[in-house]
């Protein structure tokens, strides 16, 4: 095969940009699954919900999709807090009910998807923004705005979450609840309240991730499923509950997928992510960056 250096360089760069976007999609799972141990497989469905809200705001009001997603993020936070409250009352409070808990989120995934199908149909929807289309050129390297802006937004979001968990009391309490709930109680913080806040935050990130997704590609309701495996693959590879690990794993997956798409064809990319996940699970379940 004829491999030119330009093509390789461009594939790696767009992989890095794609990786940034994957980090935005995964960061919510890093919080809910990695830190809180809540297996929210419905997360990608909430991301698609975010995409559609950005689409509505963009097509009816002409608002920038990413700006709109930041505005509605508090509503997503409330939704997340409500879902966690139901989850806590119905399952977590009684101790181990993993089967029912998983089925609960699976049902939410399904309801969200089917509702979107009933309301919007299965047509692909897309948004308009000034940065979709033009590209930045650095010598032979091309930086499409369609990928560059989402990557920067994603990096900003991951950075903000990192600062929040490292600097504020609530943020540190979220890290603590991941480690030892009893100890948290002894420090006079209510673990259920902390987890509700954290889960709300994780769903709030889905709003921004959804807007970023619809900037990158047209969206239809069932597209979220393609991301279920990816987000969990990245979260596990990143060592469960580590923001830096998530970012690194997302970048690696982005590059590998981009190389696969460039040299073998895009129809093979879904298998790459999942092959990665299966390999990670089989060989190093604590993740590439996790502590063993």
């Amino acid at each position, binding site marked *: 095969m004829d491999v030119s250096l330009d093509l390789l360089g461009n594939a790696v760069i767009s992989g890095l940009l794609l990786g940034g976007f994957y980090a935005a999609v995964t960061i919510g799972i890093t919080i809910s699954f990695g830190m809180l141990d809540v297996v929210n497989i419905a997360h990608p469905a909430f991301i698609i919900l975010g995409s559609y809200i950005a689409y509505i705001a963009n097509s009816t009001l002409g608002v920038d999709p990413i700006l709109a997603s930041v505005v509605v993020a508090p509503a997503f936070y409330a939704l997340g807090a409500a879902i966690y409250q139901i989850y806590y009352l119905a399952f977590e409070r009684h101790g181990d009910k993993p089967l029912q808990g998983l089925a609960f989120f699976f049902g939410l995934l399904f309801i969200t998807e*089917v509702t979107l199908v009933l309301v919007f149909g299965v047509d692909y929807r897309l948004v308009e923004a000034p940065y979709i289309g033009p590209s930045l050129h650095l010598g032979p390297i091309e930086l499409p705005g369609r990928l560059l802006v989402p990557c920067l937004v994603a990096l900003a979001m991951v950075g903000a979450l990192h600062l929040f968990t490292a600097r504020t009391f609530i943020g540190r309490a979220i890290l603590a609840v991941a480690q030892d709930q009893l100890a948290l109680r002894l420090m006079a913080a209510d673990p259920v309240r902390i987890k509700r806040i954290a889960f709300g935050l994780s769903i709030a990130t889905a709003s921004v991730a959804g807007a970023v997704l619809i900037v990158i590609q047209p969206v239809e309701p069932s597209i979220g499923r393609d991301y279920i495996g990816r987000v969990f693959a990245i979260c*596990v590879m990143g060592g469960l509950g580590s923001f830096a690990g998530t970012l690194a794993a997302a970048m690696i997956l982005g590059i590998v997928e981009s190389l696969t798409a460039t040299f073998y064809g895009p129809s093979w990319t879904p298998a790459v992510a999942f092959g990665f996940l299966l390999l990670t699970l089989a060989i190093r379940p604590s993740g590439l960056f996790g502590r063993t």
Partner: protein
Amino acid sequence: MGTAKFLPLILLAAAAVFLAARLIGNAYVFFAGYVVLQYIVLSTAWNILGGYTGYVNFGTPTFLAIGAYASVALYKVVPLPIPLLMLIGGVLSGIVGLGTGYLTLRLRGVFFSIATLALSVVVQTLVTNWDFVGGSRGAYIIRPMTAPLIGGGYIDYLCLVMLALAVAAIVIARAIEHSKLGIGFATIRDDEAAAEASGVPTLRLKLLATTLSGALMGMAGAPLPYYVTYLDPASGFSLTYAVNSIAMPLIGGTASWIGPLIGAIILGTVQQLVTVTISSAANLLIVGLILVGFVVLAPNGIVGLVRGRR
């Protein structure tokens, strides 16, 4: 009641159902009946792993589609009788089940669940890129006009085969439940670490459960191309199969063989009615809502509600 006594009873019941359907003499009964029977097999198979050992499998479509695509591939080479296809589909899906289990069952249960979701996309990608079975365009199967052996429409025959498989699945599930194996499975569900410590060979039991569950799903998938006559990856790997095969046991009750049976009959029939009277998208929404409602309000299903009354 032992299996030896149960077998004639269920065979009698199955024969009565089939004869009654024949007497009605409406082809639609068989079209709808096939789907309900398929779901009885799928939910019973799912429950052997999910209900008995507590490992949630989201990959029902994978195993079903492996059986279905094995039939498509063989149809292109040499068309075989349906029971033989079922056997082949069952063996292939059983092997995939064993492999998945071997890769992931040593980890926490939830990783197994995520891996089954992932596997479904990997296998779907492979099939989509496999031109011999039609790739993403899908494959057509020409169904014979009349049924072998029993006469009448070919759908009648498919229905009969699926009925036999449903009976087999229920008998197997029930036999497991009443045996030492079933107790072993239950210890895994209740406390895997304690079971391991007490000398229960947990990994071997789990592998047995995934293999058996996968094989039954593959067998249920083998006649599918002949039923739909056109199969493409999107419909073969449809998430509908996954949500139904989870919802049905949970609605019926996961602790015993009768739960998936009740769930599949109720939910399967309701879906057929809603599909005909309202729309197929609405029927999926109803399944989702019923599933979430049941797991939140009645985590032990209908069987649990009935037992709780007493």
